[in-house]
């Protein structure tokens, strides 16, 4: 077999392989489009969108409009939505928190209480949705009751957060000196609660 013939055979084999892979990919895409479940996709959207909005809200408008920052925020949000069961959601939340801390440190004055509340609500929405979605694929058909339970829980927690923020705002307006102490107290009570609940869950028969 001559070299020319061998190279022609090689090119033909390569082109056939590429064509087969393309056909298989297209068939896989068509199959996915046929099987895709709307609930799975919408829940992933409910992870990506709050994370991206939180990242945009956490920084001053001039940073939020920067291409690099928008790209990074979109990337973190997208990866968290596509892989909700792994480490991606916590990385995205940490990205938002670090942006919030850095922008707060560089900016003069105290950060707004209501911006922090909005940030907390958005981050918890992404976290709770990722917790529900972590084992579901985009093709998993879901019972409507699952979505209803998720929405009910989310509403309850977000309302509680807003209530806490409202109480804090009330106290900040009238008793400025008490605010820091109350917030730290609330944080400690929350931490003790979580630690207690965790201890109960890990040791079934205390």
């Amino acid at each position, binding site marked *: 077999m001559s070299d020319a013939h061998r190279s022609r055979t090689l090119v033909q084999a390569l082109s056939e392989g590429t064509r087969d892979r393309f056909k298989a990919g297209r068939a896989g895409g068509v199959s996915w489009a046929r099987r895709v479940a709307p609930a799975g996709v919408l829940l992933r959207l409910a992870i990506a969108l709050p994370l991206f909005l939180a990242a945009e809200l956490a920084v001053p408008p001039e940073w939020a409009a920067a291409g690099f920052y928008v790209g990074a925020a979109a990337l973190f949000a997208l990866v968290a939505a596509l892989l909700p069961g792994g480490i991606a959601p916590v990385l995205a939340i940490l990205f938002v928190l670090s942006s919030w*801390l850095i922008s707060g440190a560089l900016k003069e004055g105290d950060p707004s209480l209501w911006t922090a509340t909005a940030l907390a609500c958005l981050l918890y929405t992404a*976290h709770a949705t990722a917790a529900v979605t972590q084992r579901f694929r985009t*093709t998993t058909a879901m019972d409507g009751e699952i979505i209803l339970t998720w929405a009910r829980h989310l509403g309850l927690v977000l309302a509680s957060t807003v209530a806490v923020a409202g109480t*804090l705002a009330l106290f900040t307006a009238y008793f400025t000196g008490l605010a820091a102490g109350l917030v730290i107290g609330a*944080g400690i009570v929350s*931490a003790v609660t979580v630690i207690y609940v965790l201890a109960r869950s890990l040791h079934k028969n205390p």
Partner: protein
Amino acid sequence: MTLAGDPALRLRTDSARPAGRVAAEPPVTWRRTPALTRAVALVAVCLLVSVAFGRIDLVLIAAPFAIGTAVLLQHRPTRVPEAKLAALDDATSAEGATAAASLTVFNPEPVPITTLVTAAADPWIDLHTGKGDFAERLAPGSGREIVVAGRARRWGGHHLGPIHVRSIACGGLLETTVQRLHGATVWVLPVPDWFDSAETLPFADGVTGVHRSRRGGDSGELAEVRLYQPGDRLRRIDWRTSMRSQDLYVNATLSERDTDVTLILDLQVEAGISGGIDGAASIADLTVRAAGAVASHYALQGDRTACIEFGARGRRMRAGAGRRHAAATLRWLASVDMPPDPLPPSPEMLRRQLAGQRSLNVVFTPLLTDRSLALVAAIARAGRPVLCVDTLPPHVSPPERSHWTPYAERLWRLTRANTVMELRDLGVAVEPWQGSASLDNVLAELNRRRYR
């Protein structure tokens, strides 16, 4: 030498596999998910940073994580849900219909849980959307029957499984380890082509049936109108003819009888790529569907129908008639298997399994091996009526290997046509399978030869 010391007994088998301990399935338990770890870690980090850097806004950000986690973990399950595969009474379906397996999941805890079911299946089963990968909500202390289903695209025994069951509780903060159910085998019956034949069979036998025999007897099949003879029944008198001719005439009829039909399935060679019920047919597809059609037609008509495999397994289906036998034949045909490296069957051994001399033998063969030709020729030489159904699909051709391939294929097809002509010279009716009424011409030819 003792038996244990025999070196032949210590030889390794062809597919030797190291004898290892069978891995036991780990017990299903509840465990925390990455989401719970994430929530706790975020609360801890926010509190630490708020204390370290004096950022009290972080306490507010951590608040929903702490509240949400506490609310969700208020009611935690301890016992794991039980998932069992329910045995279906009638685990058969038809090609193109739905093949299903049913499983029951019971939640023993007073806490609602979500059960995620993920099933795999044979490539010939297309799992329905929402029936192979789905999540269901289970109320506290309740059970639910869940169906995993898909469209069966080809006949045969197909495996529906393994089925993975995982339960999730507390809004995704706790989950069970995966419970693996091995699944079930679903038998998919071939959908035979529509076949109908108006021709009677050449050798009518038995005492009653639908085929015209050569003997006279009571039936509706008119043989002739002849003069009355002593012993004729009065109700056979043809009064119109008698009135016209002024002599007594009677209608003589031929008796109607049933017969034996033996279907011989040549399963030595498989060629062509099966596309299932919607795609192109391979030799096995054509053989099974054609045999199913012919067997159903004659069995429902009342003839005794038997099937014999001419292949590596050499199975035999007993002769029988009626609706139940037709269904049993389809189930038998669904078990047809063509091993890739079969032992060649013996035509002589198969000939010994054939029923009496008067049964009709229908051989479904692609006429690709000398053994099949020898079998057909031997049956014909023995004086048995034999009908050969060519099951080589018209689209099947050898792969293109060089520029000589088309010429070689043409020569091969010419040789095959010559072989078919030689078989016809021997008295074998050879007809390609074309579905409904495709055998009427050759059956008529056999009848003519018989009554000549």
